């Protein structure tokens, strides 16, 4: 290993930027989280209230609901993405004419701004004008209305997220699969293993680090999804059935200007995300260390 001073020097610019635009705001939010501070309360000052914000948070049904919505949303979306992405990556492993065309088309959703994705899906699903409810009604006589039906709205945001992020999973899985050594698989086939056995006992264990990595990235980003859901369901409706914790924080900090409570909420969410991701990270490094 080389002189560590040069190493620190190389690392420094990144760390300085992350410190200034990342850690410094974090410290501020941490600080504000211990205060009762709302610009439009009778006393506008910041009043130190210790852990009162957190005390209130662990009982706040709106916050806990939002958290639960977020967790369910992330769970369903990420699991589906993993399954579909893995499957599609397998399908791309083999060469066939037109492969790169299909692959390029498949990447398109990744390139669209989340806020535009929300708008597109709103246009698709808005009752009266959108083709989805229209066709469902015409073909199956099925009443699809994301403004009224909470489970349909939830389904819509999950499907939208699957549509948006599966390409990323596919590409990462594909990169992983292409990099796998082929000998073990061939050896197993020679030994008479069937396709499923090869997949279950060879490919899957080999892919474990990739799966963990994708899981990590998707969970990390899924938990902070705001723009597209906010746009699609117009702020998390019907009721609060699609109000993710990101949207909820947004509503508490922006219109309610409840900076103290919103900061605490933000930190608690960050805390839960970090803990969840830390477990994945540890299992990832432990897998690698072996």
């Amino acid at each position, binding site marked *: 290993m080389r002189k560590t001073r040069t190493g620190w020097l190389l690392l420094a610019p990144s760390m300085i930027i992350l410190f200034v635009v990342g850690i410094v705001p974090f410290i501020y939010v941490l600080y504000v989280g211990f205060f009762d501070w709302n610009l439009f309360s009778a006393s506008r000052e910041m009043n130190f209230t210790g852990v009162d914000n957190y005390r209130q948070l662990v009982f706040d049904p709106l916050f806990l609901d939002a958290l639960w919505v977020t967790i369910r949303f992330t769970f369903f979306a990420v699991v589906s993405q993993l399954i579909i992405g893995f499957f599609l990556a397998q399908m791309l492993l083999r060469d066939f004419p037109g492969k790169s065309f299909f692959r390029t088309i498949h990447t398109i959703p990744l*390139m669209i701004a989340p806020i535009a994705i929300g708008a597109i899906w709103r*246009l698709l699903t808005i009752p009266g004008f959108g083709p989805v409810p229209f066709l469902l009604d015409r073909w199956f006589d099925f009443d699809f209305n994301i403004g009224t039906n909470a489970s349909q709205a939830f389904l819509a945001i999950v499907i939208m997220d699957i549509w948006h992020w599966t390409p990323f999973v596919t590409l990462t899985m594909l990169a992983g699969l292409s990099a796998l050594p082929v000998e073990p698989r061939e050896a197993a086939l020679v030994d008479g293993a069937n396709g499923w056995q090869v997949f279950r006992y060879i490919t899957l264990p080999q892919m474990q680090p*990739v799966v963990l990595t994708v899981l990590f990235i998707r969970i990390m980003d899924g938990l902070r999804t705001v723009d597209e859901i906010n746009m699609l369901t117009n702020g998390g409706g019907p009721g609060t059935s699609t109000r993710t914790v990101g949207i909820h924080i947004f509503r508490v900090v922006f219109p309610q200007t409840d*900076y103290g409570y919103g900061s605490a909420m933000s930190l608690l969410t960050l805390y839960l995300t970090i803990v969840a991701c830390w477990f994945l990270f540890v299992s990832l490094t432990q897998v690698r260390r072996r």
Partner: protein
Amino acid sequence: MNINTRKVLGYAFTYAVWIIVTIVTILPVYWMFVISARSRVELFNAPNLIISSFYTQNYTNIIYDRTFQSYMLNSVIVSTGNAVLVTVLALLATYALSRYDLVGKDNIFFTTLTQRMAPPAAFLLPLFLLYTQVFAFGEGRGRWDLYDTQIGLILLYCVFNLPFAIWLLKGIIDGIPYELDEAAYVDGATTSMVIRRIILPLAAPGLAVTLILSWVFAWNEYLLAATLTNFEARTITTGLAEFVTVTGTNWGEMAAVATLTLIPSLIVVAFAQRYLVAGLTFGAVKN
């Protein structure tokens, strides 16, 4: 079943899957395009998936609008600037994390990643204060601050792009045999020469992916840009929100903007398709 039938069936299955996937992927984008080709009155009719006439005004209104031209330019500058900055910084940082025995490397790495996890809404207030009060120089009218500047956004987007980039590159640089560096150092090369001559070419696919994804993330970011810019540095995604008004969302023009925004990303991706696959390994699998 003989081998041939199996093969044909395999192909048929592959194509069937991909045609379905393609339709599902394209349909929403196509619908956006359909909307962008319709006038407001036409939108009210029962949904019709076929474009029979093209209402060009949605596009011309935007293309000839000075504001939107400058939004577009800002977006290009900010996302390109950020992508380049992130890639360069991440390359240096990753090289350090990969090759030097730094105390607590894994911790540094994970701490960096946590930067991407924060729900942004609550962090806007400190960022706003940071940009308008801390990084503010001069007084009165001659005052300059980071608020509403392209450089401000470029730096800010590092918060979520840099961790991602470092992670992406980490695996790739870890995969470059250490012996190559060592040999170069023995020949008297400096660190900067090693990075430029050895790491840079070998990590090229990874760098390309980093560049592309950082660019796309920066290009698509909305909330931070909306809050921390107002006139000079506004980006195209913030322009999308302007179409939602009390007297009716102008879906046509909004879809036109979204379509126009998509084009640069598509070009970038079309050129860099193969790198995307080669570079997205996150070092999770080494060979």
